[in-house]
């Protein structure tokens, strides 16, 4: 597919997923819309274009396919919509989000065998460690595929991440691409007011990582950085993509604030929000 056409297709899918996210969180009257709206472009690109894995062939053990781990487990509306819209399961199932007996638990679970999920997450700071184990297993198996991880930026305040970041650099785990959702916001407010991350790129470089930066809400730029990230693998350094995003991206009143981290919209807010996002592929 020509580049431009591919970008348009992915943008349309991400737009539809933004509707899914709002509708899921509104229907459940709980969940995390802010980070989900910010990360959906990345998640769409990953599952529908970047990863070398066919949705129908998802393997729990990830053998001979790329794997993905979500460390900031609270953005399940984003994860579930991207998985469903990429063909991992029927989009109708999105209507069960956070309801009793659903496979779409509030935070990711393997308990119910939802395709696309390898491990539970939600207690923050753990996804990178699990991904490192999977990446080392791939190296043992001489499996050339890659391991992708998404972590929140606030989550980097968890010390376990820095154990993992130190390990990955020192042991040259170069078949792994960590993306940081660099939206500079967390539950209690702006990151620099809560606990500033300082020179994040410099910190990763000091731990011997290959650092890339870019805009995570621009599909063309995203695809470009992710292909640079792929190309940087296998060269003795783990790769991190510091992905600038806007929390709440696509809904004007949800942007520029941390207030929509874990709050569902009421009816009036939902109507205002959904009117701003075109139905491109049909609602679930």
């Amino acid at each position, binding site marked *: 597919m020509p580049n431009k056409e591919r970008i348009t297709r992915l943008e349309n899918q991400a737009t539809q997923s933004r509707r899914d996210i709002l509708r899921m969180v509104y229907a459940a009257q709980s969940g995390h819309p802010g980070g989900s709206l910010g990360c959906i472009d990345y998640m769409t690109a990953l599952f529908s274009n970047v990863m070398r894995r066919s949705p129908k062939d998802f393997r729990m*053990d990830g053998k001979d396919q790329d794997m993905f781990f979500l460390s900031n487990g609270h953005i399940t509306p984003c994860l579930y919509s991207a998985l469903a819209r990429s063909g991992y399961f029927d989009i109708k199932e999105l209507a069960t989000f956070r309801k009793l007996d659903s496979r779409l638990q509030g935070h990711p679970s393997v308990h119910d065998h939802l395709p696309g999920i390898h491990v*539970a997450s939600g207690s923050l700071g753990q996804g990178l*460690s699990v991904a490192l184990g*999977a990446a*080392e297993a*791939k190296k043992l*198996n001489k499996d050339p595929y890659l391991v992708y991880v998404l972590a929140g930026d606030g989550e980097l305040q968890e010390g*376990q991440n820095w*154990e993992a970041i*130190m390990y990955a650099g020192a042991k040259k785990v170069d078949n792994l691409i960590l993306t940081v959702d660099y939206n500079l916001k967390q539950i209690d407010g702006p990151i620099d007011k809560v606990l500033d991350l300082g020179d994040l790129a410099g910190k990763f470089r000091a731990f011997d990582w290959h650092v890339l930066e870019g805009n995570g809400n621009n599909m063309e730029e995203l695809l470009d950085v992710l292909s640079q990230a792929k190309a940087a693998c296998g060269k003795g350094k783990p790769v991190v993509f510091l992905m600038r995003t806007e929390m709440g991206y696509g809904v004007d009143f949800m942007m520029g604030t941390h207030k929509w981290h874990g709050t569902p919209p009421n009816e009036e807010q939902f109507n205002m929000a959904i009117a701003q996002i075109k139905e491109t592929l049909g609602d679930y």
Partner: protein
Amino acid sequence: MEKIQYTELKECRAGFGEGLLEAGKQNEDIVALCADLTASVKMDAFAKAFPERFFQIGIAEANMIGMAAGFALSGKIPFVGSFANFCTTRVLDQIRMVVAYSNNNVKICGSHAGVTTGEDGATHQVMEDIGFIKGLPNMVVINPCDFNQTKAATLAIANYKGPVYLRFGRPKMPNFTPENQQFEIGKAVVLKEGKDISIFATGHLVYPALEAAYMLHDKGIAAEVINIHTIKPLDNKAVLDSVMKTKCVVTAEEHLLNGGLGDSVAQLLVRNYPVPQEYVAMEDRFGISGKPEEVLSYFGLDKEHIFNASLKAIQRKK
């Protein structure tokens, strides 16, 4: 009466080390992860034999548990080794989410468990771990009693699919169970039969329980001694069968009274067949430095206390 006697003093941790090496030879999916305690927890033989399958994580137990989960979900069988407190209480939330809830085939192997870590003192003498780990759904909790049994348990958990906590001690202790025994997870072992009292013991207190039973024998009391090497899942049938015969119980363990084997037995009995029960366990406090045997006696974790607790339980039947 034929008495079971120990042949020599050996370390449970050494049994783990031998078992891990043998398991590694049998199955190349086994990997081992250690957080800078390789020789202490006896993973060095495995590390030397299979350097490509041994992962030195550094002093970073949280990352180690997460990585073990990653290995497990990828089809490997990770054995995680550390001191028992550093691979349980220190990383409880990691175990909860990525091992237990995610039902990953991780073997958490905690050496230096209990007050028999001795001179290192309370910071290293974990006495709460069984309670914490058995409280997590999906977890199996095993506390073998000697070198031979620790080796057998290590081999057995390698062949079991699911998360396991294997808990064992550091010092040389009586080695009295059979060499090359078959270890069946969740299956209690009757060491001595008796009709007057059931003594359920685990870990380092199994041998003193036997000694106490022989002391009781000299008083004309027939004690039944059962080795509960698997605390979860508890062998309910073995416990109930014994108690229906003896009508009173002593539990003995190198663990806090809260959350240990005694609590598991009490929970089973109170719901099915309530009888008088005495605990030989540590009260609600932390340990102290001293030689292993000294510290065990200081906290009443020895044959004399099991003997006295047995008399008391029998008294309460009347």
